[in-house]
């Protein structure tokens, strides 16, 4: 963190995206997180992904809970509305926001304490409901903002900075998301922008509940030996199943892939996900296999990353509720009030 105000001036030569925006247009306030915090890298990846997708910056709603991670929406997309709500309740707030206006893009940012401890119920139920959102957990295995207590994603047997060993079983949010019917499930590492950026893009383009668990080391409280969420540990144990390219335009896939190494997934809006397989047997459409794969590798201490599961035919909560196309928040009295004649009928039926 630095206290020098960011200059407003934009270099005219900065690269622009399809809508004519530069990366700067996707930035937010200056981060107040610790220098080197993994969360700041995720912020950078979100900015990159939105820039690359040519999203209108103000058409995103950024919603978070409470924690260092949940502060980050203030640090990207400065022209979007953000909501730093209450601890563990981002999913419900996001669900409501989504119901009010189906036309915005919903980005839910949370921490592992926020989503796996206090918010485990809301995490689970928002996913079950198929809320159309990109749900990112910035997972550092600790409560950063309250100074380093274990969260529920801390692995059993891992050690805190103070030397305490965690005795409780860890919650693997990816495994749970798969179990609960998420239609897009991925894991990445804050230190791996090449993997993370297209993953966020793909999630944004996904219709339904897209969940990304991003291991994001906490420099201040969980980056020591004995931690399984440190930069070193994750780098050493990272096992990526695939690499992703997101192709949004109509143009054919031009990148050359060796035959049999790529799985192409077309999502609702035509976006194609080109998945370069790193693990030859891995099929992103097989939920059960994904779960088994995860378990097996977790047992070996490996951190499986990549796009782990995607259902291209997914539907979202609006589909399930059969809501009108117009955002509910645009409907006026004439659309909503059934009028006095209808009321007279109701009165008559109540006599």
């Amino acid at each position, binding site marked *: 963190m630095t206290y020098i105000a960011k200059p407003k001036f934009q270099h005219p030569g900065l690269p622009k995206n399809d809508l004519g925006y530069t990366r700067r247009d996707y930035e937010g306030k200056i981060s107040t997180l610790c220098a080197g915090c993994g969360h700041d890298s995720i912020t950078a990846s979100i900015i990159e992904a939105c820039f690359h997708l040519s999203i209108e910056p103000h058409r995103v709603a950024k919603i978070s809970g409470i924690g260092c991670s949940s502060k980050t929406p203030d640090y990207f997309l400065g022209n979007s509305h953000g909501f730093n709500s209450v601890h563990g309740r981002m999913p419900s707030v996001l669900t409501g926001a989504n119901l009010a206006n189906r036309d915005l893009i919903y980005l839910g940012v949370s921490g592992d304490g926020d989503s796996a401890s206090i918010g485990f119920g809301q995490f689970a139920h928002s996913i079950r409901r198929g809320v159309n959102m990109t749900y990112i957990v910035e997972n550092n295995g600790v409560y950063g903002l309250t100074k380093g207590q274990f969260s529920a994603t801390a692995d059993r047997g891992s050690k805190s900075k103070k030397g305490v060993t965690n005795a409780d079983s860890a919650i693997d949010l990816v495994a749970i998301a798969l179990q609960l019917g998420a239609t897009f499930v991925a894991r990445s590492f804050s230190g791996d922008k090449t993997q993370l950026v297209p993953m966020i893009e793909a999630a944004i383009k996904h219709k339904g509940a897209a969940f990304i668990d991003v291991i994001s080391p906490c420099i201040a409280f969980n980056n020591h030996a004995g931690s399984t969420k440190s930069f070193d540990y994750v780098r050493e144990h990272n096992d990526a199943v695939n690499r992703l390219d997101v192709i949004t335009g109509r143009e054919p896939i031009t990148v050359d892939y060796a035959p049999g190494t790529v799985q192409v997934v077309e999502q609702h809006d035509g976006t194609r996900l080109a998945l370069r397989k790193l693990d030859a047997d891995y099929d992103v459409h097989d939920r059960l296999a994904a779960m088994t794969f995860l378990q097996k590798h977790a047992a070996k201490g490996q951190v499986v990353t990549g796009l782990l599961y995607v259902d291209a035919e997914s539907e979202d909560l609006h589909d399930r*509720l059969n*809501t009108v196309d117009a955002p509910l928040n645009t409907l006026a009295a004439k659309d909503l009030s059934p009028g006095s004649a209808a009321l007279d009928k109701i009165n008559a039926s109540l006599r």
Partner: protein
Amino acid sequence: MSVQSPISSVNDFVIRFANVNGSGSASANELFARSILRMGVPVSPRNIFPSNIQGLPTWYEVRVTEDGHLGARGGVDMMVAMNPQTWDRDVASIEPGGYLFYDSTKPIPASKFREDITVIGVPLTAITNSTYTDPRQRQLFKNIIYLGALSALLEIDPKVIEQLIGEQYKTKEKLLASNVHALHLGRDWALQNLKCPITLTVKKSEKVGDRIFMEGNSAAALGAVYGGATVCAWYPITPSSSVADAFTAHCKKLRHDPETGKAKYAIVQGEDELASIGIVIGASWNGARAFTATSGPGVSLMQEFIGLSYFAEIPAVIMNVQRAGPSTGMPTRTQQCDVIACAYASHGDTKHVLLFPEDPAEAFEFAAQSFDLAERLQTMIFLMLDLDIGMNHRLCRPLKWDESREYDRGKVMTAEMLDDGRDFGRYLDVDGDGIPFRTYPGTHPSKGSFFTRGTSRDRYARYSEDGAVYADNMQRLLRKFETAQDLVPRPLQANAQKPTKYGVIYYGSTSPAMDEAIEILEKRGHHLDRLRIRAFPFHSSVASFVADHDFVYVVEQNRDAQLRSLIVNENGIDPVRLVPILHYDGTPITARFIAGAIGDHQDQLKVTPLKKVKS
């Protein structure tokens, strides 16, 4: 029969049905109440049911009241004792000179009756079993048979009942016929074997007028439909679940796009109350009108989010259908016991707007209005219902809607306004009323966005931990609350026939009992001016009303005189001037109770010097 001469009354008595829940008696009993209504005679029914699904005692009480006294009366003039489990209690509860109606199929020892009542036995089981063989049919038709017998005894027009049955089974010819048959089975038996009518009778009248008969929860839900609520998130809890059920039903009928068939609303059953209120807050933040319905335990769970609504200034509506507390309390009993829990909900310095409808008509109006208030004031609005008006049918004036009414969406800054160069500070008090402008997410590419948080920020929604900035905001919130005083429904005053030094304040479902109590008290020579409070914060007329009287009774259905505390606390009134009249056993308050308590106090006043009166 009895030495006591039987109670004799036309169109003014209380009849109570003692049943077992899950036995299908509810619809027969409701038919009974409706048939009297159709004869033009006001009734006020109340369901007294247990917190379980099947097999426990349940009662349905119908007050037949030509005079339109819709409050609970207390006492029973005729008991329809269908539940052996509660026989003793039920028999004991009959007023001297009252009637006991029972199933005389099995002989009951004389000791089980009373001397001072009239006992009417009808061999219901025998009649039923001789006609029906299917056990479920037997169970259901026995209820219709007693209804038939009662129609003969009380002179209820069988045509009216037949018509109601007809409306109910419009498309189910066969059911219609068999119900009518059962009705006459009972009716004929009574006409042939009993002296009909008895001294309690129903006579056609014109007293119902154009009034409608509706449950408060359904009315509130309809108010939400008319008031433009598009998002409803809820979690089942007695006695509020029927708000969401009704909202669903109303929306299904009234809120689908005729062309596409699509829904102009979204209803989500949350996984709990925290999720429900979170969804409501998220939706409201994003510019939709949203509400939840809950009861005490839900309100407790929502406290953190309620504080967020207050501080981050997010409109939201909670319909709190109050039940007896504290803790799980008595889920199927009524109280007005969440007044403090809602008014000062959440930790820290907070105050919230409460609306107190008296009946379904007002529940409808206030529900619709609550969304205007929530958006105008950008804060939480509590619609304070209770089980008594929420889950019982109550006669009330017909619902009205002004066709030209637009929603008051409050201060929302649009893209145009931003482009016009209007200064947007999310927490800037531009008009001196404490209410700032907000923008909806997605409004403008480069202006008007802000970061909402429940924590330290300045007038421009920028993060700040500065003490002066914080205090400034907290003071503005107080100003906003003052503004609310003049926006919420005003108290209604009704003066005694003679000038008096005494007043009474009451609210919500207490209304009909209070009106009736006033009549009783007047007969006893006690005159009181009345003020019905309809909202918190209190309009200045509340303080004036208290100032204008030596003593003011505050009638409430809770133990701790919660509204009285609010009046004292918010208006700086000497508590000694406010005499609490408290009813809190979970049954609806009665005119008898109020008149008794106030009357006794008034009588005492005459002998006790002012100073010694203990509140």
